[in-house]
């Protein structure tokens, strides 16, 4: 099987010939390509080049095209700061008062420069790699996560307790429209799957009941949009998600990208025959700062847990720091390729 076929099999619950590997490595890829984050985010050719070089170096199966985590927020008018050597970031939300959600203008995500760069990068990758390597076009933030950026995370948390609920839902609907616009645009690039991050909706921030009320219904709409274009969908939530794993399944997502703090055993219990796990090696403590021996141990542990299910794609649990040692990534992939327990 080639990389595309391996990831495709894992998403469909079919047995791949080897453990499929996808890397959340955009910052590492940019560094190894010799470009700054500023150069990376502004040039689709540079983005594509960095990922192509990364695939050639490490021989993994799926590229996660990720660039910044505030691109949709920027498209909606949130003020964004663009450091030369770090990902873009935001300072304050756009809405100082939640009531102002009614004054937000309809958004056209496609008019934002950085969205177009992102889409073009995916087009270039698909054109070059065709059906050899699987291309996951990440579409930045899911509606709840995006709402925390538009309103400001702390303010939205207090809105959930104090504000008129209809206003919160209006904001979430507005953000759902933005996320779905990005999904639709990404579907036109030829990407093989799409995804979003919704980490502020996890139990590190809000209760399972709040997740069910304020995040899940909007995740479902986004998943349905992806599926309407025939695309599989992955949902990424960081942190320990044990208490909402069952609810997350209801989103309809085909795959869940989970962080190292979520015990893969619990995921296996609930998901092994229903949805694909993408993850979940510790990107910082193990892959960036650990020894080759640490990487070997943690990778084998994870592969053994998931050896009973084909619904598994090995990855870091979240974005790899830029200075992650090449030797550690090579070791993780080597172990994955040699592992014979995945039957």
């Amino acid at each position, binding site marked *: 099987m080639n990389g595309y076929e391996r990831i495709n099999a894992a998403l469909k619950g079919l047995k791949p010939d080897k453990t499929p590997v996808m890397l959340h490595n955009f910052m590492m890829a940019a560094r190894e390509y010799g470009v700054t984050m500023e150069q990376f985010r502004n040039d689709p050719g540079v983005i594509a080049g960095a990922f192509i070089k990364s695939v050639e170096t490490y021989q993994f199966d799926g590229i996660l095209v990720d660039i910044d985590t505030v691109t949709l927020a920027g498209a909606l008018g949130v003020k964004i700061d663009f450091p030369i050597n770090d990902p873009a970031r935001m300072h304050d939300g756009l809405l100082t008062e939640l009531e102002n959600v009614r004054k937000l203008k309809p958004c056209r995500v496609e008019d934002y420069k950085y969205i177009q760069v992102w889409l073009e990068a995916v087009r270039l990758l698909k054109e070059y790699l065709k059906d050899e390597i699987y291309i996951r076009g990440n579409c930045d933030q899911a509606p709840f996560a995006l709402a925390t950026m538009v309103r400001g995370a702390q303010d939205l948390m*207090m809105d*959930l*307790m104090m504000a008129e609920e209809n206003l919160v839902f209006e904001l979430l609907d507005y953000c759902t429209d933005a996320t779905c616009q990005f999904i639709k645009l990404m579907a036109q690039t030829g990407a093989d799957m799409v995804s979003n991050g919704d980490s502020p909706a996890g139990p590190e921030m809000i*209760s399972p009941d709040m997740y069910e009320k304020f995040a899940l219904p909007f995740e479902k709409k986004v998943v349905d949009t992806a599926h309407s274009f025939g695309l599989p969908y992955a949902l990424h939530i*960081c942190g320990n998600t044990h208490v909402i794993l069952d609810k997350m399944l209801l989103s309809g997502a085909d795959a869940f990208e989970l962080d190292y703090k979520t015990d893969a055993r619990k995921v296996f219990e609930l998901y092994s025959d229903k949805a694909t796990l993408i993850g979940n090696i510790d990107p*910082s403590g193990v892959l960036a700062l650990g020894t080759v021996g640490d990487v070997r141990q943690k990778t084998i542990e994870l592969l053994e847990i998931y050896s009973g299910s084909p619904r598994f794609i090995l990855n870091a649990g*979240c*974005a790899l720091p830029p200075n992650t040692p090449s030797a550690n990534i090579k070791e993780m992939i080597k172990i994955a390729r040699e592992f014979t327990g995945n039957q």
Partner: protein
Amino acid sequence: MNLIEQVAHCIEFGKINKASPYPPELKGQDGADELTQMALENGFAAEEILQKGFVEAMNRVGQKFSEHKIFVPQMLMSAKAMNTAMKHLRPYFQSGEISRKGKFIIGTVAGDLHDIGKNLVAMMVEGAGWEVIDLGVDISHDRFLEELEKHPGSFVGLSAMLTTTMVNMESIVKNLKEKYPDLVVCIGGAPVNQEFCQKINADFYSPDPQGLVNYLGQHSSKVN
């Protein structure tokens, strides 16, 4: 309930002031803000209000958060209630009538602009009787060193929310401890864990603010 118990109740359940609609069962009633002022006007000692009103309430809140019985929104409401009421007690800290337990310098590390966790920790540590110097976000080791020079003997807290920025904690810890070998550095944030804390030679990690409050309580020394 006496006034201090009412202050504690308002803090525990996030009732900031009379105007706040939350929680629904206390709507229209005085909140932590008004009740703290009333307690002072009625002759309750500032230290007693702090300990029995603020600290005990926030301990209960912190415990509930550690046990996943409440989450960030509820904790924020409690912290806001306490923080709003704290303005009535600050003059007593300044005069020395209430002693601070120590100084705590906190910041989100370089490259990271997330502050919700840091803000919660800052509010809880202040509520526990510490002087908190909150440096904000995107803080380099130089900035921490600047503050340590102004406030010797402080504890330091580093926060990070991203896997790509938490690695910056390593160099910050290294730089701080090169200049201050006895410095105590505490770390926290969603992607961080105990193993990482040990790996980067930080002194303490807690998955929640209450753990840090308890740890600092074991190391406090009264300062003016």
